[in-house]
C-alpha cells in the first residue's frame, strides 16, 4: 500500500480563481463557445446552450427529452421537478457566471423554460458580462 511518491493533498485553490472561471470550467464545449460569443459580441440571443447546460447541471431527474427540445412552456418546478433549493443553486450559478445579482422577487416571476430564457437575456443585456 505504499506509494513511492507522496500523494498530493493540496487542494487546487479553485476558490481563489474568479467565480466566472470556476463556473465556466465545467460547462460543455458548446455552452462554453456560446458564452464566449456572448462575451465577445453581446449575443444574448445565442445563450440557450448555456442556459440548458446550467439547468442540466442541477435538474433533479434527467428528462426523457433533451432540455433543448422541450416546449418553452415546460415548468421548472411542476414539470421538471426542481425544488426551491435546486432553483437557488441555478440562480447562484447564473449570478456567478454572468456577474449579475438576481433578487428573490425576480426568481418568483420565472416559472417556465421560456420565462428563464427571456429573463436571462433581458438581465444580461442590461449587465453585459465583460
Amino acid at each position, binding site marked *: *500500500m505504499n506509494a513511492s511518491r*507522496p500523494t*498530493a*493533498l*493540496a487542494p487546487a485553490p479553485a476558490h481563489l480563481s474568479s467565480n466566472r472561471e*470556476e463556473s465556466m470550467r465545467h460547462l460543455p464545449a458548446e455552452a462554453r463557445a456560446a458564452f464566449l460569443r456572448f462575451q465577445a459580441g453581446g449575443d444574448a440571443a445565442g445563450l440557450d446552450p448555456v442556459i440548458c447546460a446550467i439547468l442540466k447541471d442541477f435538474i433533479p431527474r434527467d428528462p426523457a427529452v433533451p432540455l433543448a427540445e422541450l416546449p418553452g412552456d415546460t415548468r421548472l418546478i411542476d414539470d421538471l421537478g426542481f425544488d426551491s433549493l435546486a432553483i437557488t443553486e441555478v440562480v*447562484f450559478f447564473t*449570478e456567478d457566471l454572468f456577474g449579475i445579482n438576481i433578487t428573490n422577487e425576480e426568481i418568483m416571476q420565472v416559472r417556465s423554460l421560456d420565462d428563464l430564457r427571456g429573463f436571462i437575456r433581458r438581465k444580461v443585456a442590461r449587465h453585459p458580462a465583460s
Partner: protein
Amino acid sequence: MPPLPVITGLGFITSIGQDRPAVVRNLRELRHGFEPVEFFGNPDLPVKVAGTVKGFSFPTPNWRDWRWPEHFAVDRELLRGLAPHGVYALCALQQALADAGLAATQLTDGTTGLFCASAGSPFLLGNFLDQMHATRGERGNPMGIISSIAGTLNFNLAAHYKITGAVCGFVSACASSSHALGYAMDEIRLGRQQRMLVVGAEDMTAESIVSFSSLRALSNNPDPATASRPFDRRRDGFVGTGGAVALIVEDAALARARGAHIYAELVGWGQAGDGYAVAASHPEGAGLRHAMLRTLADARVNASEVSYVNAHATSTPAGDHSEALALRAVFTATGAKPRISSTKALTGHGLSLAGAMEAAFCALAIDEGFIPGAAHLEEPDPVCAGLDLPRTSLAEAPLFALNNSSGFGGSNVCHLLRRPT
C-alpha cells in the same frame, strides 16, 4: 427480556480496505493503509504520512471534480449537498445495507433510525466562508451549510433514505461515533426503534488533518511503517485518516426472524467524563477507567471474561500512557489479562470515525475468529507492564470484545460486543 441490539451489516471505506474481505485480510496480516502525503503542496510540513482512502479524489471543493470507485453509485443530485466524507459515508452505508440484506425501501416505515457522527467538513466550510468574506456576505453557495457543518451526514442520509425514525448527529470529537453507536443500542433496548443505521465518517483532507498539527498531536515520523505505533516507547503522535464505516444494528428478534447474519451482539456500553482538561486526557485515564467499568456493569460481565480490547490508543505519548494506566486498573489489578491492540497502528486515527470503525473491527474479530495484533509495536512503553499486547494476530475468537474511545474534553465511551449465542 429487553430487546438485544445485534450487528447485522457492515460497510467499510477505510485506509485499509473498502470491503469486508480486504479489511479482514489487512487486520489479520497487519498491513497498514498509510502512504506518504504532501499536505498543502508544502514539502516543509513535518507531517508526511496519512491513512489515505484509495480510489477517492476530492481535488477541489467543486463536486464536479470529485471521483470515486466506479462500483459505488453516487447520485449527482445528492452529491451537491455532500462533503467528501459524505461520499465515503454513502458508499459505506450502501455496502452495509447490502451486507445486511436490506433494501432502501425497508428503511422508511419509522422503525429504522439513523445516528451519524462527523466533525463536518473543514475543507468545504473554509471554502464557503472564504467566498462569503470575499463578497462581503453578498454571495454564498446554497449548499454551503448543508454540505459542511457537523450534521451534514444525517441531513443528507436521512433525506436520501427517507428515514422517518430517530435521526441525530453526535459531536464529541474522537468519541463521536462511539456515542452514536451507544445511543443507537439504547434506541433498540428501549424499544423505540427496531433497527438503527450508525455511520461514522471524516474527510481525509489537509484541512481536517493538519489542524491537529497545531496541537502538536500528529506524528512527524515520515516512515509509513512506523509512524503509527500505539503503546511503543518511541511513539510521537497520531497519523490522520478519513473514510466512513456504517453498521446496521437491529433487535436480535427482528434479525433472527428475517434470517440475517449476526456478526456480534452489543451487550453493553458506558461513558464517563474525565472532568479534567479540554484536550489532554486524564493522566491516569480516570474517565476511560470509569467508562470501561460502567460498560462491564451494564453488560453484567466481569473484567476476566473480556478476551480482547480494541484500545483507543492513537500513538500520542500522553493519550496512550493514560489508557495503559486505565487498562491496568480495570484488568491487571483484578488479575484479568485480555489481549489488547490498537488497530490505529494500521488505519491511523479516524477522529469521529474511529469509534464506529473499531466497533466494526471488533465485530469482524468475533465473526471471523481472530484477534488483530498490536502492529508496529517494538518496544512497549514500560507503563504497559502487565498488559498483553500480542505482536502478531492470533487465531482466537473473542467471546467478549471491548471497544474504547476517547474524545476532547475527556469524553470516554466503550462498547462491549459478544459472540452471538
